[in-house]
């Protein structure tokens, strides 16, 4: 570890709607190191998926990347042309989506959909592409892969479809895999299988993974580092073990209190009061201030900067500023 595969810096992606400008991604920065799995965690609507689409250059109207940098392999992807980006997409960066049924095209066979990827990126064609596709499917743990090549998505089970989608995403040997809620649409038993599969191919192929999820269980089990997002911003970032053990940001602390613990009926679940802010009318200060139990005046007026409070621990909160918080020492959960 050490060298960064992907660096997102001050990314802003806005959507113009009739209600005004929706700042879905508003100054997101994080780094993903080679060989690691970085989890992007947050509630739905916090901007995780838009961040992923921005990296892929797939934000469509009315969305627009306003500014920022997406550094990948020493280049800023945001400066690349559409045709250059097409070589990156599916080639050097693969992407897996949430719902495998709606993500595979219902009118094309598995073969067509995998071979198409191999051909477009010049990896293989004709008979070779077919053989390679079968190998890929086998590597994804699909039994009778040769026969499954002619199958259509509706003829496969949910788990199979997700395996096919992963096969497509990694078919061209990408360096980076973006997995957007890869298990959310699956049964719990399948979730574990698919996550194990992702972990396995990561080891085998030396992949780096950006894992988008709202499931803290998956974060703790399958990722090395995590970036917690709230209302379009990363509020806390660090190694998973530390971050879950000692969350710094009040939002992360609140999030952890919402997770039920097996065998601990005595620990009550505490929901975070209030609701996610309206993205078209964000509060002027800290995005979380209206719901934060520890907020004071400064939080409501001034947006905190991201600070490195310890080695590789970043947090966007006034409590960790130079100026001491009027409240007590940060609570440890």
């Amino acid at each position, binding site marked *: 570890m050490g060298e960064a595969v992907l660096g997102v810096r001050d990314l802003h992606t806005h959507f113009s709607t009739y209600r005004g400008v929706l700042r879905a991604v508003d100054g997101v920065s994080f780094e993903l190191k080679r060989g690691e799995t970085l989890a992007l965690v947050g509630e739905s609507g916090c901007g995780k998926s838009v961040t992923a689409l921005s990296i892929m250059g797939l934000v469509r109207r009315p969305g627009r990347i306003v500014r920022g940098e997406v550094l990948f392999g020493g280049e800023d992807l945001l400066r690349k042309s559409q045709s250059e980006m097409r070589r990156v*997409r599916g080639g050097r960066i693969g992407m897996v989506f949430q719902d495998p049924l709606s993500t595979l*095209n219902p*009118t094309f066979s598995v073969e067509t959909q995998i071979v198409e990827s191999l051909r*477009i990126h010049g990896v293989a064609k004709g008979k070779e592409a077919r053989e390679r596709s079968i190998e890929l499917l086998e590597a994804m743990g699909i039994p009778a892969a040769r026969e499954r090549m002619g199958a259509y998505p509706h003829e496969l089970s949910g788990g199979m479809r997700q395996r096919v989608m992963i096969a497509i995403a990694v078919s061209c040997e990408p360096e980076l895999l973006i997995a957007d809620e890869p298990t959310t649409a699956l049964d719990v038993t399948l979730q574990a299988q698919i996550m194990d599969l992702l972990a396995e191919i990561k080891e085998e192929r030396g992949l780096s993974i950006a894992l988008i999820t709202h499931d803290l269980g998956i974060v703790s089990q399958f990722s090395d580092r995590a970036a917690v997002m709230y209302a379009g911003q990363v509020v806390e970032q660090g190694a998973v073990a530390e971050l879950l053990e000692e969350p710094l940001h009040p939002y992360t602390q609140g999030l952890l209190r919402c997770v039920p613990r097996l065998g601990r009926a005595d620990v009550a679940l505490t929901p975070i009061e209030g609701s996610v802010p309206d993205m078209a009318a964000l509060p002027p200060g800290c995005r979380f201030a209206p719901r934060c139990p520890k907020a004071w005046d400064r939080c409501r007026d001034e947006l905190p900067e991201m600070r490195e409070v310890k080695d590789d621990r970043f947090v966007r909160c006034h409590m960790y500023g130079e100026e001491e918080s009027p409240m007590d020492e940060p609570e440890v959960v």
Partner: protein
Amino acid sequence: MWGRFVTRRLIQLIPVLLGVSFIVFFTMHLTPGDPIEHMLGQAGHVTQEQIEELRGHYGLDRPLVVQYGLFVGNAARGDFGLSYSHHGRAVASVVRERLPATLELTLFAFVMALVFAIPAGVIASLRPQGVFDRGATIGALLGISMPGFWLGIVLMIVFGLQRNWLPISGRIDLAVVPPARTGLYTLDALLSGNGAAFWSALKHMVLPGLAMAAPMAAMVMRMVRSSMIGVLAQDYVQFARAKGLPERTVVGKHALRNALIPTVNIVALQTGLLLSGNMIIETVFQYPGLGKLAVDAIGAADYPLVQAVVLIYAVSYVLLNVGADALHAVLDPRVRVA
């Protein structure tokens, strides 16, 4: 699989034809007008005996039910009787003479409508509410709202009479009629290498073809547009982009194929309307096809001819639907199982 599918659908055709023939037969006989009087109208003095003799000749003196039975029995063997209004010629031969004209014109209008409607629908869907989309929407509204006979007359006046660009009646310049092989003049002209005949036949189809194609193009365009908008928002379109496919493959392959599935039915329905619409258009343009033949036959109370033409329309409708179902199965693997 296809063999069974087609056989099953063709067997289903039989009750449809029986039903259609029954309705047409009896409604024709219910309408006022006596075919014998039509026939003898210009003959001057005729005796009652001559009238009765003619009635006997055409079998019109038998009870209706018997007449119907005979009609069905003969029709099953391809014999549709004798036409009252075409000097007693066999209906089958009169129809055979006119059918190619209508087929050719309908096919021309069909191709023209689709060649315009599908790309226009796709382009409109790429930028909903954009300039092209708004323009196309207005165009479609016009296409749907203008009655065919009115549009036909306007086209005649503007392009035929005022500009004299295109012929306004007939199928071809009579001086260049190509040797008959298929009866489709454009095809016959190509087969015999007769360029002048080809252009003449094509030019004669432009105005009636446009008048027929306009409403179909409008409907199909709107359908393609709305289903494309739905499909373009699907995850598999996003995934196709994430695979690195160029936008034209994403739109033209991944999205369009899915968008065409619901469009097929509209196309089949609209093609049926093209067929029935040609009664009006062929009459307006004096185009010697089945539609004009039917209108004239109705005026002349020519029962056998009307029955035969209406049966042809009914068969075409059913075949169109069989075709649509087959195409559906080709496009969408999910319906192939059933």
